[in-house]
């Protein structure tokens, strides 16, 4: 028996809100926010909620409002009580990992129709709060032997180390970040995002557009920001990804589900890879994951039409670009997390969504989506339009 093909039938995302109090989604519960793309996928593909066999959702801080297996709470509220749900955490790679799990379930024949994606409300649940001591257990009580030879840097310090290693100047990083805002501005103005975004009704009104893009920014303005992680460093809030709220989801189907529900596949999965990497530099994952996935697929860099590489820090994308000799014109063509924002558990699905729509808009064939991941991991996938 041959592997089943796994198709992307549809993909959608919410606008990305700034992850702060008083911003677009700060009064929207993450369960509600995560349900928005799920409901829309059902509606516009003429499916019944009960047609979905599993809801697989990434979330990088799975506690408090995002706790208690948020995938299942979204399944109950956005779909039906008979739809199961599973939450997973591969940190910044969670949203894409959810899609990988869905695709593998389809390829192996376990499922025919699933929704996979991610959600993160950073305005409510701060990054890292899942690792905080529990209430009443503020002081560590253990001889934490596991902490020995278990060093890890704050992400920003790793961003600095990467800038240093790949000899990236402050100007290089700021220039890149300026371009991210400009590309995102242009994409927004020209309506390139219109198809991939579903507007969200909140208590404050309708949110239709990404909130983080700064059309009026300049390299000079970005250049005035103070370094955020070390004295004399090059990483600033301006050349790092933004703290964000958002959700994104993909409808994945097997060949038989495509027939059964009369769906139109838009792309298929060619291959994917995850890697563990050195934890000091921490964010070099794409440098290893992209060649790995290409090798697995028997493809080369030149066979890829567009790349989405998550802009955790400008230094991450630039180092990846230098190391893999990527053509800058193919990378993050509509901007990235520096302009749009980086809702941790949602970004992987958001990148795949943006990649799919842009491949379609440009009538190109094949794209790679890749993310670096805290504590040294990387993830990459190749999709191809059908």
């Amino acid at each position, binding site marked *: 028996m041959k592997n089943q093909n796994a198709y992307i039938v549809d993909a959608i995302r919410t606008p990305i809100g700034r992850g702060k109090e008083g911003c677009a989604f700060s009064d929207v519960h993450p369960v509600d926010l995560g349900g928005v793309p799920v409901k829309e996928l059902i509606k516009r593909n003429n499916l019944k909620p009960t047609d979905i066999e599993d809801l697989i959702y990434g979330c990088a801080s799975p506690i408090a409002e995002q706790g208690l297996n948020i995938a299942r709470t979204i399944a109950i509220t956005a779909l039906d009580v*008979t739809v199961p749900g*599973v939450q997973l955490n591969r940190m910044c790679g969670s949203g894409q990992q959810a899609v990988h799990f869905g695709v593998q379930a389809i390829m192996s024949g376990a499922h025919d129709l699933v929704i996979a994606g991610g959600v993160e409300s950073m305005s409510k649940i701060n990054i890292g709060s899942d690792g905080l001591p529990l209430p009443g257990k503020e002081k560590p009580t253990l001889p934490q032997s596991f902490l020995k030879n278990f060093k890890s840097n704050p992400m920003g310090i790793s961003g600095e180390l990467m800038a240093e290693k790949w000899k990236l100047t402050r100007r290089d990083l700021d220039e890149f970040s300026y371009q991210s805002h400009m590309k995102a501005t242009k994409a927004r103005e020209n309506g390139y995002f219109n198809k991939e975004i579903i507007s969200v009704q909140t208590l404050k009104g309708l949110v239709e557009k990404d909130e983080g893009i700064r059309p009026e920014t300049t390299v000079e303005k970005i250049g005035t920001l103070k370094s955020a992680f070390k004295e004399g460093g090059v990483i600033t809030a301006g050349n790092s990804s933004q703290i964000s709220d958002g959700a994104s989801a993909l409808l994945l189907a097997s060949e038989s589900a495509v027939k059964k529900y009369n769906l139109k596949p838009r792309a298929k999965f060619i291959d994917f890879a995850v890697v563990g990497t050195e934890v000091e530099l921490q964010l070099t994952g794409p440098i290893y994951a992209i060649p790995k996935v290409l090798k697995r697929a028997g493809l080369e860099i030149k066979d890829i039409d567009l790349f989405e590489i998550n802009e955790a820090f400008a230094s991450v994308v630039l180092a990846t670009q230098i190391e893999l000799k990527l053509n800058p014109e193919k990378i993050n063509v509509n901007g990235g997390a520096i302009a749009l924002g980086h809702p941790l558990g949602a970004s992987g699905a958001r990148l795949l969504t943006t990649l799919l729509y842009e491949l379609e808009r440009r009538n190109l064939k094949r794209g790679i989506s890749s993310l670096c991941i805290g504590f040294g991991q990387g993830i990459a996938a190749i999709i191809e339009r059908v």
Partner: protein
Amino acid sequence: MLNEKKLQDAYIISGLRTALGRGKKDGAFSQTHPVELGSILLKELIRNVNVNPEYIEDVIVGCATPCGEQGFNIGRQIARKAFGDKTPGTQVNRLCGSSAEAFDIACAKVMSGNYKLILAGGVESMSRVPMGSDMMPFAGDLKNIWKILTLGPKVVNLTMLEGLEVISMGISGELIAKKWKLSRKELDEFSYNSHKKAAHATSSGYFEKEILPVKTPNGVVKRDEGIRANVSIEKMLALKPAFKFDGVITAGNSSQITDGAAGILVANEDALKEYGLKPRAKFIASHVIGSDPELQLTGPIDVVPKVLRKAGFTINDIDLFEVNEAFASVVLATQKELNIPNEKLNVNGGAIALGHPLGVSGARLLVTLLNELERRNLKRGLSVLCIGGGQSIATIIERV
């Protein structure tokens, strides 16, 4: 390219668990960090079968309370601690079905040919990270516990709660007892037998093959701590109802709060050939469903027929069943509905005697199932768990 690959079978190469410690302050593993516990187990698991750690392509760890010491993607933390920086890892949460889910994911991954060799498992330290901590407000906000659930709509636009009755598991256990007309006596007898079966299995050494002794600050832990060999039905009947004053569910006929870890090494045909591995069992089918969130724990009744149909089997084709003993009422209701013979059901006891480390139990059940199939020289087993909030997951394996 992936879609040109042949669909492969998924095999269990090895399964191992820690002893289960009581999830209390002075429990066996209460001084052991969950990352430490998980990594000791997984490291030894692959050493036992002479697998080079570099061959492990991913580590998928079920954990139902992924915060505090179990936060920060504990899958990766365990992978790093056990095998080094180059081994990736991810955490999954399907509550009580988390590590059954981890196993199913691992099987799907290797079947699709995208991976060859994956470690799946679970870890939970309920003594250190109590159940439900992931729903709490943050540290320092203790007095506002459950505010998120109860006062949510006032703070945020929370449609979530409208369709989502949040019921304690115990109350669902009571509802199930009522619906299936299970008396206190029946529940206690079932629970008494769970302890007796587990005590017999322990004294006969049946668990020795599946338990890895673990050195802790409290000494070497090699036996399940929750089993009460000297329990009597009278003692059980003396316990007070735990969830409602006139109820039948007590601490004695419910699963225990527990610490532990379990792991399963999963390979496809390519890996068997390439690494010279000897499979012990084959993955046949799995299924997961959502179910009524009010009764909450009746999922096994619906999911078992579905997974059997998927595999082309009937109840009679299954030699042994492991049905997670979240509450005695859950297992008895399932047994009644599906006509599972007593002598095939949780033959070495279950979570009432051994304990129920939430994120671990799925893998623990599979490890115990495989071990017992081998001991009795039987072929096919089915494990199933009910899941809080109304879900259920079932898996069929077959010895090869």
